[in-house]
């Protein structure tokens, strides 16, 4: 599991952790059926509170990306594979946006607008 954290960012830590897991899934570093490290392990490695990690895991569970199973911990669902399929589309979109001179932030705003 690869985690990037920016303590200065406005995004709360738990959201950044969740974003890292999503990025891993998108990049194909994590696959459906893989088990995420125990929340305690993540917390100790990164230096955050265990509850922050649990919050991240719950967020991912609500999104359907992981399942929390007794005894096994957090396991990635098939959703993960579908997310990886999205990667190609995302890259294409970013390329097109850059060709048009749009920053990624602008692109994000456009996506948010379109989906509302």
């Amino acid at each position, binding site marked *: *599991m*690869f*985690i*990037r*954290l*920016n*303590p*200065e960012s406005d995004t709360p830590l738990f959201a950044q952790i969740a974003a890292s897991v999503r990025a891993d899934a998108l990049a194909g*570093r994590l696959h459906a059926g893989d*088990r995420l*490290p125990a929340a305690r*392990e*993540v917390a100790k*490695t*990164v*230096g955050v509170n265990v509850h922050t990690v649990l919050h991240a895991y719950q967020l991912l569970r609500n999104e359907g990306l992981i399942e929390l199973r007794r005894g096994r911990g957090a396991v990635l669902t098939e959703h993960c594979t579908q997310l990886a399929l999205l990667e190609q589309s995302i890259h294409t979109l970013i390329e097109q946006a850059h060709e048009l001179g749009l920053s990624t932030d602008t692109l994000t705003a456009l996506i948010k607008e379109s989906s509302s």
Partner: protein
Amino acid sequence: MTQLTPQLSRRRFVLVAVWLPLVATLVSLVWQIALLPTLPDPVAIHWGASGQPNGFAPAWVNLVMTVAIGFGLPAVLAATTLRPLRRGEQGVTFRFLGVVASWLSVLINALMVGTTIGQSGLDDARDAPTILVPLIVAALLATAICVLAWFIQPAVNMPARADQQVQPVKLAPGEQAAWMRETSMPRIFVIPMVILTLVLLVAAVWALVATDLGAGLAFFVAPVVLVAALLTSTVFYVRVNTEGFTVRSLVGWPRFHVALRDVAGVETRAIYPMGDFGGWGVRWRPNAWGVVLREGTGIVVTRTNGKQLMVTVDDAETGAAVLAALAAKRA
């Protein structure tokens, strides 16, 4: 001059680790079977420290043991070694294993023949002569043959495998990164060990409760040792963070750690436990420790003092990239 190819290494290994034990076992079996009518019933199958027989069984038990240990054991050894050999790995480890296989086989087979000859013509197995003489003869014969087995195998070394350069992860100012993965021994290795442990545990409980062998808790030593071995060598957690590179087992020990300031270099490399370290698990070779629970790409960390730590783990490229970035950032 025969070409020193991986195929030659493999063929010669099979010669000393499979064919030689097969021939030795057949010779020994035939000899023992020929002597069968002259043997007492039961025969002596175990000797005490004094050299006098103290264990007896029907003659067929010896024949079974001859095949099981004289051929079965080398066969198992060869089977596990053949996979890396078929892939073209070479090296002194395999040569050594070929020697071990042939030595074991000749020793057991010669010993079986020796003890059988000793009891031929006797009415009572308790009069069987000391095991010392057949043991020494068997050992000498085995050693002579295993020296042959050494020289018949070609002397080659595995060519040094290229380390893959690692691109450090790009970190924005103020950004922190970390990486964690679990690495474990393939189930196909672990499951037989677990089954063996359970069997030994059941045997120990049974010995304690249902028989009056008087061995007490002695039989529990083996399963306890196995459980300890399983807990400390089948699952490891690999962690890259601001503290450095940490590899620790399921139960916390053994634990290997390289602080960021001690990281001189980080690479990824294809790691083959058998060829590189002579086996699976937590291994050592001069100047390097390896947590090589399986083969595959792994992270290789070189310390400032020159020693290395290698771990086979999934997604090694990312882990190495993060470690390289953190180490550089610290500098």
